[in-house]
């Protein structure tokens, strides 16, 4: 998983954009998101296809950008988590 960072003004964001939401420039670097701090986690029982039947959704702060990940275990708020992509998307685990 990558975070987008504007090369002109430094604004960071997760979702792909054609223009920087702050300065309008179109030059970005893609910074790998490897770890973050747990902001909140929610156990999801009714999950969407094709995901497993039960997991935790974790909202992480990655260098001031919010990122969602899937985790098999409950992660404590304020703790450090490592991010790794699997075949479905970003997952995280206790650091």
């Amino acid at each position, binding site marked *: 998983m990558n975070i987008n960072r504007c090369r002109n003004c430094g604004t960071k964001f997760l979702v792909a954009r054609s223009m920087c939401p702050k300065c309008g420039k179109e030059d970005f670097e893609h910074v790998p998101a490897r770890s973050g701090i747990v902001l909140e986690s929610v156990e*999801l029982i009714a999950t*969407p296809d094709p995901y497993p039947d039960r997991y935790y959704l974790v909202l992480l702060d990655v260098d001031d950008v*919010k990122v*969602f990940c899937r985790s098999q275990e409950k992660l404590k708020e304020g703790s450090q988590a490592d991010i790794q992509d699997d075949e479905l*998307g970003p997952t995280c685990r206790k650091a």
Partner: protein
Amino acid sequence: MSVISDVSFTRFGKRPEGLLDLAAESALPIVRKYGRDIDFIVFSNSYSGEFNDVSGVNNLISTRLSMDDVPSMRVDNTSGSGGSAVMVADSLIRSGNASNVLVIGAEKMTGYPTKKSTRIIASLLHPEERSAGISLPSLAAFMTRSYLKEFDAPRESVARVAVKNHHNGSLNPYAHFQSEVTLEEVMASRVIADPLRIFEFCPVSDGAVSMLMTSDENRDSFGNDHVEILGVGYSSGTSSLSYRDSLTTIGSVRRSSEMAFRRSKLTPNYMDVVELHDMAAVLEIIESEDAGFFKKGHGWEAVMNGETEIGGPRPINTSGGLNSKGHPIGASGVAQAGEIYLQITGKAEKRQIKDAHLGFSLSMAGFGNNATAIVYGGAS
């Protein structure tokens, strides 16, 4: 100004009929009376491609109703399609592009495993966020946790919304669920997205509702019961959830409501009856604050004090809301307008609010991607 002059509901719920059957069932009572005068059809529907394998549904329904040459369009704005459809009809009428508009809201969603429908609805998220396995209900769970923590609200306050709305739904012959639930039953029901339980979410429903909208000048040709559209507000907010500052307020709801009240020259205090978009029970509380009915962080107290019940000073979701009435996506926002119509014209039967003259509805798309707020007024 535009007015709503007639409304017709199907029963919401698990229906064996198809999308066009349901749409026609709701439209026919209006078309039989006024078909020759209708010069535009606005069809609110979002997922006919995904759930029903059909597209171009506005033309399919116009031919079904033998109104083949009447201009029509589909309005698709996910969960907020219905509010957007009313806004489009109001704009068509006020601009003079149409005189008498048939607004149909319909969705046929049942018949698939929950995992499949959860996936279809989650397709409105950005891939970078969706790939984590997010569902719309999971976002409501994040919102609930943040709200309860930030405002020190009791967990029970969210469940109480579901108790109230199931009671209201038990009084609504069109509602999907027509039975009450107790607080204990809500709190003992199955967890869907921790801490929220199944009774705190809307069900997956089929259903349709139709309305005849016309101009103030034409109203006398369409019966004696009219409800005026006094102001419409519309706003969008970022569709990237990770780009939102707060999980306990929805910018599009705040801005659209403020605009609708400004345009109608009214304030929230004047509203006799209110319909909000309670896909999850927590949303009713947060929207009731963002729309201006309660101060931020105090909506839960109003629920606990019974202020939002039928008979309370600020009745919310007298129809049962999405929570109990059901949420056939394209129908929901139109059904909100329909409920306000029934209330203001005194036709809401067992759930009638005494002396209802002014109303408000809030139709929301994609967890706040858009919102349409509408202020209504009665002729009497």
